[in-house]
């Protein structure tokens, strides 16, 4: 089952490539549907009988590659497939026939998903590196797919950032292997104690900083807005919703796995990411409030929302912290996919990528605006939505440890999000200026964004199963 989650996207991606430019939509759909079913079945299996393991080709570690899925992995896999399927439907309607941006869209998305799924199932540090690179290269390819000078420049900037990030991670892995002679996370966890040599600290630092660069944590966020803001809407949605979460997932894994005894020992180590996260919340929101272009606004909102994820590190000692952060990952994943999809539709309809150009769309494109609004509700953390549950859990954890500053940042961050979300809604509710033209857009674009947004809200009414799944380690 786990192997198929990796093989299936590889297979349909290769076939889509062989079929030629712009082809392979139906193949991708069928594959994604099967993947969604597989991810769901895997989650069911884990709930029923605990952590699942698989030795690829019958060769176990240390020589072969092990795939391991616990609750955390299964949750991430589920989110990835849940976001990818509606976005694929969206993309099939978004790209016009012979659109140059769609030339290699389907193969690249397939490779991207293979990389993601493999990353969530990896059980050793080096394997994670390979999947991280596969993921990064596919993502860069997707950003560049538009083919304009702007997109190529964003893609190059993204490429260099991601390569430096994974380079630092690789050097860290090398140092770890040099010290302990293994890269298996399970074997490493008991080996690395509180009295680990300085070299291990350096290795850990390199790995985590490299991954932060790939997660676009402030101040490493410089590459994200142009890359996500400039790519075609389905690509932006996929990148913002799940790809940045992949490197965050690795940080989280390292933190609660191999490096757990290091992170308990040192206060500074715990607070540094949280501090950067707070700055990210403020800086990202500030830039989103100022942005003139709609997609830039959404992209900077991602910078802010990623900041919340890093607030969790001082709280990880409490029970329920992992659940809180995964709820936030789901909330942002679903909502941001919906928001980028809705923004793409609005831009297609109004013909311009500006907030000011949105006047009157509430009347012409109510479904899309509703989707944008619902996604906004989740991002603001207002009830009833998954974002609200994440906010509730984060604040309660912060209060239980008396970290007032975290609770404060979460609350203020929500209000700042309201400023930029309502900036868009307010403009959209204005009466259309005379002579403005709103072009018709395919219904598919409107409703796929709506489905994603509705999912982000409905998860806020029933989070028990997800929380139970994440609890299985």
């Amino acid at each position, binding site marked *: 089952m786990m192997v198929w989650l990796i093989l299936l996207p590889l297979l349909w991606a290769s076939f889509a490539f062989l079929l030629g430019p712009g082809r392979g939509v139906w193949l991708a759909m069928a594959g994604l549907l099967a993947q969604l079913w597989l991810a769901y079945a895997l989650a069911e299996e884990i709930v029923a009988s605990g952590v699942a393991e698989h030795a690829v080709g019958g060769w176990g570690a240390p020589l072969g590659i092990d795939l391991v899925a616990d609750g955390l992995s299964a949750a991430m896999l589920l989110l990835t497939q849940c976001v990818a399927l509606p976005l694929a439907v969206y993309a099939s309607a978004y790209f016009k026939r012979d659109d140059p941006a769609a030339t290699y869209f389907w193969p690249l998305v397939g490779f991207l998903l293979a990389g993601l799924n493999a990353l969530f199932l990896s059980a050793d540090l080096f394997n994670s590196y390979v999947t991280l690179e596969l993921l990064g290269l596919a993502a860069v390819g997707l950003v560049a797919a538009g083919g304009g000078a702007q997109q190529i420049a964003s893609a190059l900037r993204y490429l260099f950032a991601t390569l430096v990030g994974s*380079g630092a991670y690789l050097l860290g892995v090398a140092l770890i292997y040099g010290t302990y002679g293994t890269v298996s996370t399970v074997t490493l966890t008991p080996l690395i104690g509180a009295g680990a040599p300085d070299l291990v600290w350096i290795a850990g630092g390199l790995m985590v900083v490299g991954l932060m660069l790939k997660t676009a944590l402030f101040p490493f966020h410089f590459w994200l807005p142009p890359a996500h803001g400039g790519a075609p809407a389905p690509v932006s949605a996929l990148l913002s919703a799940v790809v940045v979460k992949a490197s965050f997932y690795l940080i989280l894994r390292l933190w609660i796995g191999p490096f757990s005894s290091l992170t308990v020992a040192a206060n500074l180590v715990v607070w540094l990411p949280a501090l950067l996260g707070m700055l990210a919340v403020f800086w990202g929101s500030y830039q989103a409030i100022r942005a003139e272009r709609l997609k830039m606004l959404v992209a900077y909102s991602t910078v802010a929302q990623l900041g919340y994820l890093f607030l969790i590190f001082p709280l990880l000692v409490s029970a329920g912290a992992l659940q809180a952060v995964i709820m936030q990952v789901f909330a942002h994943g679903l909502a941001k996919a919906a928001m980028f999809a809705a923004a793409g539709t609005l831009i297609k309809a109004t013909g311009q990528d500006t907030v000011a150009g949105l006047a009157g769309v509430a009347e012409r494109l109510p479904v899309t605006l509703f989707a944008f609004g619902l996604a906004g509700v989740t991002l603001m953390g207002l009830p009833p939505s998954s974002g609200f549950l994440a906010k509730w859990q984060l604040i309660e954890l912060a209060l239980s440890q008396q970290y007032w500053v975290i609770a404060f940042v979460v609350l203020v961050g929500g209000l700042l999000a309201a400023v930029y979300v309502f900036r868009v809604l307010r403009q959209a509710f204005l009466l259309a200026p005379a002579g403005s033209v709103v072009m018709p857009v395919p219904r598919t674009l409107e409703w796929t964004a709506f489905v994603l947004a509705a999912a982000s809200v409905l998860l806020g009414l029933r989070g028990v199963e997800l929380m139970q799944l994440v609890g299985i380690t």
Partner: protein
Amino acid sequence: MTGELLFASVGVILFALGVAGVLLIGHLLRRVLAFNVMGSGAFLVLVGLAQRNGIADPVPQAMVLTGIVVAVAATALALALVRRLYVLTGKLELSQDDDE
């Protein structure tokens, strides 16, 4: 200084040089080269540190092989993008103000 430490130190120095190059150099082709220097540094550390009593450990060698494949793919992608950018703009540098 033992052999393994020597390899590792050289690797770290190469890595640092490479990172500095990727971050500081404006010319895109040279940046791609700097990335390769960086990668080689990491590989050298991986292979160098992992010798046990002078006997090479085969696992990191396999890892480095994989790493080289990844690095080649990344270099190819980077070169393709650089070439495309050159065709479109005639420049081999990223301008500072193209992201807003």
